[in-house]
């Protein structure tokens, strides 16, 4: 396979090149930008206004300038993600990061900032950046995916914990975590909290994660049914999270063989609240389109259903031994 151009400087490069001859960029690893969409503002307000005052309010309609985080789309070969503020929240406190190591595989992290903690968007962005670094380094080094996943959670937990202010421990920045390390023939999913991963293949769909929530615990203990848990006010009260006060030492993980083509879907609760069961997801999932289209469509489903929370969906193409 011939890589046509360097993703950094667009100079022609060959498939076996490890670095771009022109700009020196590492060609083996492609990843979403560290820090997320960053401080690049969209040029225009939703009303069409293009002038903003020093505080970022539109000079025409008065609305706050949309944040670059309000709607984020990242696309790499074989993996794509969409993160959306939704229709009810002031900020998008979800973050996503992913990368691809040529010839090795793909690593994905999605984190959902806990709304009741302070600087939740900083927490989730720090967590995805830190964890993605660890996972991509592990992929390059050919490390075991499960231990690499645990390392990434430990590192992310520490990084988020450092954001806390000692005098405000009860609102220490916090977030959930779900990751995937996908190679040609296997995938490892790790999680803390209630962000989820689903596997979708020709044969059907399956949920790969179990929520770290009080409600899920009560379901597991037979106190509540799945249905009751969804409407219970404790449904989203986390029993595990990342942050200064988490006490988390390792994620839950699951590893499985990838034998047939399919999709791996990582998402925040902004999506799965509307399509909780694998069958629900399967029903709204578009077929025969690239991962970015799948992610866009799933976010659209959540928005149409009300968009009460931030929505983040990352879709990974599973080759099933046909080359990552």
């Amino acid at each position, binding site marked *: 396979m011939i890589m046509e151009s360097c993703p950094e400087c667009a100079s022609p490069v060959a498939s076996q090149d490890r670095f771009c001859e022109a700009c020196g960029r590492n060609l083996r690893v492609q990843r979403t930008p560290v820090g997320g969409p960053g401080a690049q503002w969209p040029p225009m307000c939703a*009303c069409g206004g293009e002038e903003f*005052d020093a*505080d970022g*309010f*539109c000079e*025409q*309609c*008065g*609305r*706050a300038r949309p944040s670059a985080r309000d709607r984020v789309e990242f696309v790499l070969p074989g993996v794509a993600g969409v993160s959306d*503020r*939704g*229709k*009810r*929240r*002031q900020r998008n406190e979800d973050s996503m990061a992913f990368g691809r190591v040529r010839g090795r595989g793909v690593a994905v992290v999605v984190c959902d900032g806990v709304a009741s903690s302070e600087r939740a968007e900083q927490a989730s962005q720090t967590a995805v950046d830190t964890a993605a670094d660890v996972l991509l380094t592990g992929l390059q080094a050919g490390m075991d995916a499960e231990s690499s996943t645990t390392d990434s959670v430990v590192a992310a937990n520490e990084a988020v914990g450092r954001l806390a202010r000692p005098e405000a421990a009860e609102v220490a920045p916090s977030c959930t975590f779900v990751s995937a390390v996908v190679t040609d023939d296997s995938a490892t999913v790790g999680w803390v909290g209630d962000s989820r991963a689903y596997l979708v293949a020709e044969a059907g769909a399956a949920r790969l994660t179990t929520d770290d929530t009080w409600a899920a615990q009560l379901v597991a203990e037979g106190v509540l049914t799945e249905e009751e848990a969804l409407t219970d006010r404790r449904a989203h009260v986390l029993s595990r999270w990342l942050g200064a006060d988490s006490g988390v030492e390792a994620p839950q993980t699951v590893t499985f063989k990838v034998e047939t083509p399919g999709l791996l879907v990582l998402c925040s609760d902004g999506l799965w609240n509307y399509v909780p069961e694998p069958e629900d997801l399967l029903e709204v999932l578009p077929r025969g389109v690239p991962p970015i289209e799948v992610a866009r469509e799933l976010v659209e489903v959540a928005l149409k259903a009300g968009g009460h929370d931030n929505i983040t969906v990352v879709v990974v193409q599973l080759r099933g031994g046909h080359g990552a």
Partner: protein
Amino acid sequence: MGLDFAVEVFQNEYLPEGAADVDAIVTVTTTGAAAQVVSAHAAEVVIVDTSASMAYPPSKLTAAKQATVAAIDALRDGVSFAVVAGTDTARTVYPRARKLVVADARTRAAAKQAVRMLRADGGTAMGRWLTLADELFAGFEGGPRHAILLTDGENQHESPRQLTRVLDEVAGRFTCDCRGVGTDWQVAELRRIAEAMLGTVDIVADPDGLAEDFRSMAAAAMGKAVADVSLRLWTPEGARVVSLKQVSPGLRDLTGRRVESGPRTGDYPTGAWGGAESRDYHLRVRVRPAGVGDRMLASRVSLVGPAGEVLGQGRVLAVWTEDSALSTRISSEVAHYTGQAELAEAIQDGLEARKSGDVGRATAKLGRAVRLAHESGNTDTAKLLARVVEVEDPRTGTVKLRARVADADEMTLDTRSTVTKRVGKG
């Protein structure tokens, strides 16, 4: 200029879904040591009613002369001034010519001498008095222009429409504080003049108090360091200013005073400012509601000086939320002044009903006023109310109308109904 302006906004920015009205209290405070901000450059015109009624009782005219003399004594060297005698026409008492003179020992003495010679004769046409003052102020620039208007009677020799025309013409060119002496003048009439001229109105039931009142008004006017300051309100597309009222010190509706000054922007006059002053304004803006989670600048409030320079700025925000714990919180500042405005309205309605013999309505309105004054700790107004009604229980507003009420008490209550109690902040 040595005067610093600070603009603060007090509000609950959280609104329930679909809500359009955004309320805020805007506090403007000036700082700067008084000595630094004193400006010699100021103009003062004292207008004394010399209509025939001022001679009955003679103590009225005597007191008015003494008060005018006290005001002249208070003028610093360098201040431009004139004294006007008002009847059914208007003439300058000092100087003879229709112009201002600069205050010094000689001109002050000559002015006082001329004032002592005043005699009462003729009618009352306040519009003409104001027109002459406006003429005297013309050409004076670079400092506050202030007039004091003293009267004891009704504006009999001029139609209300004539007065309105004059007010429309001269409003904004100078400020004017109005004083009514005795009980034969009309509260509503003087209030109208004071509101248009961004000044105060008060009753001087006892002429003996006049000299001190004039002295302090003249001193306050000269303490103003910056004239012609406006509140500039920017509102987003599709929004409008429902109301802008000064709520402290005293109620003054500025809503109708808007002058468009740019796209989606209008200016409202606030008059002149001195050091260490603080005024509160209640702003209500109606915006096009945005979606839940959206944040909007409902108004940018700028304080703008005479040359268009921005002296201070504040922001009124709107954030729509589903969290009713946030959206149902009422700003204590907004609540307080909404109550003070209601209090003024209840007093004015109650006195109106009392005059027209509607005992039921008068009792209900004044009872409500008693309760509002009690709740907000406005003890000055509560005391004035107690002279007009017998208060049985201030907490419930249970009152009985007094059978005999002195005219002066009723007029004092009416005049001072717009004096608000300042909100306790923090």
